[in-house]
């Protein structure tokens, strides 16, 4: 066994739970604090694919400052989201508690596939109840749905998510939320080019995998007894159980993962500028507004991803980057 040493670093991180995501549309575990003008703190989009671009580095301290650099970018298609409800939460010692809920009856027809429009729902009455509880509300969230039928991915049923409304005072936030009810929100209302965002999404599912692929343990020599693609030893005689730290087979992928501080390189409305010849493989054309994110984000193409205001405080770049070239070379053949 030429590979084996007396001690070696642990194969794969023990910091993650390798379990399947409960929902394919991610819901962030936390939202950042916001103390400015009222705005939505996140946006839902569809991952279209990747390409590359050339831009001028605008970090003054970088050794590449003011030089042209080629970077890979991810295209996220962001058709307008529709707000169809508001929710007020109260902070208790045991977590957030819903205390007020308001839904609009002016709905898109597509939403009927996901949620039935309630009968005998008195909007004005519910609104009054909501307003009575405004003082108790600690966190206000908008209930939004996506419009996948506007894209070319073949999905018809919209996805639903809750997105926090950031505000200075609750009355400001509530008025802003009311003004959005039943209306479309554009990506430009939420994010600006040049900013950092967090991307939250469900990674590609790989199914049930062995320890070599799942944890990266070494493949043993071909004469190994019993197993070649397994762990050489799964633990001592006593205690007669397997330790939780042993890299074992099981579900790989399809986990919710958050990636922090992805820079928005560009927000555009004309998909023809960035779609490669022949369209994105497994996706097609980009027909709506889109976001170019520097680097990669988790998940397969067509998957719904959440872009959220950055959780980790980093100084936001002031200007949007100057992009000189975006590759539209064909990705087939």
């Amino acid at each position, binding site marked *: 066994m030429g590979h084996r040493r007396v001690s070696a670093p642990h194969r794969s991180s023990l910091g993650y739970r390798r379990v399947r995501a409960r929902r394919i549309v991610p819901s962030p575990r936390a939202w950042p604090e916001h103390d400015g003008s009222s705005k939505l703190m996140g946006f839902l989009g569809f991952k279209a694919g990747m390409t590359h671009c050339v831009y001028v580095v605008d970090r003054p301290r970088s050794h590449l400052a003011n030089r042209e650099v080629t970077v890979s970018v991810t295209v996220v298609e962001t058709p307008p989201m529709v707000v169809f409800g508001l929710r007020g939460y109260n902070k208790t*010692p*045991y977590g957030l508690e819903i205390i007020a809920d308001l839904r609009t009856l002016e709905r898109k027809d597509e939403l009927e596939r996901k949620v039935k429009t309630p009968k005998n729902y008195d909007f004005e009455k519910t609104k009054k109840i909501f307003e009575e509880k405004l003082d108790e509300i600690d966190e206000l969230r908008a209930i939004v749905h996506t419009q996948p039928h506007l894209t070319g991915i073949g999905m018809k049923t919209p996805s639903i998510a809750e997105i926090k409304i950031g505000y200075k005072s609750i009355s400001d936030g509530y008025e802003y939320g009311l003004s959005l009810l039943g209306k479309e929100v554009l990506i430009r209302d939420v994010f600006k080019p040049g900013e950092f965002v967090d991307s939250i999404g469900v990674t590609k599912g790989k199914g049930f995998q062995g320890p070599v692929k799942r944890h990266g343990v070494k493949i043993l020599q071909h004469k190994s007894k019993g197993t070649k693609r397994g762990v050489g030893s799964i633990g001592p005689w006593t*205690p007669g*159980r*397997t*330790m*939780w730290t042993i890299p074992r087979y099981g579900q790989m992928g399809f986990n919710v993962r958050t990636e922090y501080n992805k820079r928005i390189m560009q927000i555009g409305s004309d998909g023809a500028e960035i779609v490669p010849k022949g369209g994105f493989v497994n996706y097609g054309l980009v027909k709506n507004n889109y976001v170019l994110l520097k680097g990669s984000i988790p998940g397969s193409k067509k998957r719904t991803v959440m872009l959220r205001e950055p959780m980790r405080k980093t100084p936001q770049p002031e200007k949007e980057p100057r992009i000189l070239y975006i590759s539209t070379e064909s990705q087939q053949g």
Partner: protein
Amino acid sequence: MQKGIKDVEQPTIVPKIHIDAKNAVLGRLSSEVAKYLLEGHAVNIVNCEKAIISGKKHSILKEYREIQQIHTATNPRRGPFHPKRPDRLVRRTVRGMLPMKKSRGKAAHHRLMTYIGIPKEFVGQELIKPKHADADKLNCKSITIGDLCKEFGWQD
């Protein structure tokens, strides 16, 4: 008397007790609560984060850190679990004083609920101070359960 129906002695009705844990010594409070529970009372403890443990901060922290190291060697997710929230910590402390291997003790533990602060449903109700647990009588340093739990990551 109808045939088949046993003459069961009706349990005596015992009142619910609401205890204010503010400025009460944790162990003394817990033993008193355990006694109430075994007598058949249902007990609610409020203001758990304001209960007190006597002693120097660093020595109490050291003790609780040592307790937290006790876990299943092969898989820590299987327990034993050590609460890090004030209300759960107080409930666990009382549990240690009940005969949990007997159904009597389990039922008693079931009748106990603990709360952080004073929840709405107990506002205006009579809150009892534990008889022998007043921390004002202490002649030593002490820390509150809230401060202890904050060291373990509890956020107020």
